[in-house]
């Protein structure tokens, strides 16, 4: 037997590698092998439900950090982080005028990592408003809104509005003086619209002033209504990036 065809001893590393990456369990989860060859690397992206948002290949310039500063991706990342920390906060929070403020106090004093969760949720929320605004500026200054990407820019403007509304509805939930009066000032602005302002404000607040009805409305919008809408528009947004030919490139 020729020595080149089959070496007598395979190295320890090779055997461990095979045991991990070529067994039936691995293959049942990931259809492709470990992504260490171009073929498997493309399959890793194309056959993974999360990664297949991406194309398998991308232009060299789009990987440069300064081209996008990752701003769109960061907005999405913050949205995911807000969802996770938000779910954890929901365990401890009851949207009632009697309990809401006490629940926040309890979160800060009695719940392990409660204060940390609340802080993270708050800072990520502010961060997301900032990254979405900066993402819009990035897209504008790189001229990435131009045809055929016009409609995706419009979807982006809708997502900006949804981000602001998500932050605004969350602002009321701690039920402290800051929350109550910020929402009072904000909803009064809606009320100042000609003709339909006052009826709209009434529907939003569920009464003449910000109270229990407003709290439950804002809570429901904040934890389910607006996130679902944002998710739908994000789906369209990401889908259209691919359909419109990926990131904009110079002519």
């Amino acid at each position, binding site marked *: 037997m020729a020595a080149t065809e089959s070496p007598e001893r395979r190295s320890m590393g090779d055997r461990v590698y095979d045991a991990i990456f070529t067994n039936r369990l691995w293959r049942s989860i990931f259809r492709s092998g470990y992504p260490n060859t*171009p073929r498997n*690397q*493309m399959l*890793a*992206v194309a056959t993974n439900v999360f*990664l297949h948002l*991406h194309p398998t*290949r*991308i232009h*060299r310039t789009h*990987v440069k950090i300064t081209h996008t500063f*990752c701003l769109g991706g*960061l907005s999405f*990342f*913050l949205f995911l982080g807000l969802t996770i920390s938000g779910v954890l906060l929901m365990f401890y929070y009851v949207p009632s005028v009697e309990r809401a*403020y006490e629940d926040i*106090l309890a979160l*800060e004093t009695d719940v392990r990592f409660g204060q940390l969760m*609340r*802080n*993270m949720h708050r*800072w990520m929320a502010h961060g997301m*408003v900032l990254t979405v605004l900066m993402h819009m*500026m990035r897209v*504008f*200054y*790189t*001229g990435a*809104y*131009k*045809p055929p*990407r*016009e409609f995706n*820019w419009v979807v982006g*403007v809708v997502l900006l509005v949804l981000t602001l509304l998500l*932050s*605004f509805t969350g602002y009321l939930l701690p*039920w*402290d*003086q*800051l*929350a*109550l*009066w*910020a929402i009072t*000032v*904000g909803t*009064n*602005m*809606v009320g*100042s*619209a*000609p*003709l339909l*302002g006052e009826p709209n404000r009434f529907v939003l607040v569920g009464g003449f002033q910000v*109270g229990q009805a407003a709290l439950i409305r804002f809570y429901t919008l904040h934890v389910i209504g607006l996130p679902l809408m944002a998710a739908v528009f994000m789906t369209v947004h990401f889908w259209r990036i691919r359909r419109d030919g990926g990131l*904009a*490139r*110079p*002519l």
Partner: protein
Amino acid sequence: MAAANTQPVAASRAVEARKRRQREEELLVWPDLVFIEFISAVLFTVLTVALAVLVDAILLDRANPAVTPNPSKAPWYFLNLQELLLHMHPALAGVIVPTVALIALGAIPYWDNTAEGQGEWLSTPRAWLNTYVGAGVGSVGTLLLILFDDAQHAKIWEKLTGTDWPIPALRNLRAIQNEIPWPKSWLKVPLGDKVLRTDLLGLPKISLNINIPGLIVEQIIPLSTMVGLPILLSIVAWKTKIAQTKRDHMILQFSGFIAVYVTLTIIGTYVRGEGLALVPYTIFAGDH
């Protein structure tokens, strides 16, 4: 030899070569992009956790409808609108301006549908110049308008000369309404309830009375300022050859808009204190 290749011979070698060159310019998403995303996600998780450990989210006293804090402020990203509210009719500042601004924002690509300057930062010839001009005029102009409405010019005059400001009607915007002897009949021009047919929508009837000086001060002047100044900026930039193409004007106006938005937000956040007077303010100072 490659047998049984039934494909027709490529029409042009140049096309083939271009395709090959494009392929060479491409990277694989795994690992080149996925790793950047991963590192950036890790970095921002660490940053957020660090921020959350170091700085606590604010929590004031329990909500009390009976105690109105002074000042009462909207969330920071709406403080630009709240700032506008101080200078014009609430319907204009709180609803019409943001609605029109959002529609105009969404309409940008339908307006500027030229293909130049895509995919690179500010790549058209006068892009940076227009960014600077738009941002400069937007921020300085907003600042000057706010200082005017706060009667700063009159206050400075009084401090320097020791005499009263000579043109009381130009003390600030509201003075135009209060200091000019408008004819009495202009203060209440009845239009009856036949102009706004709110009854057709099932809403209460509205008897419209127009206060002409009020209309001028709260609506006409702010509206013509907000529409007129950007148009004037574009005309001047066009005549001076600063902005020559659609994209130039777009960058000029967008930069101006962002600058106005940021300036209004900063002033609304940090320089509006008790009674929303123009004084330094921070929410973290007293009551936290």
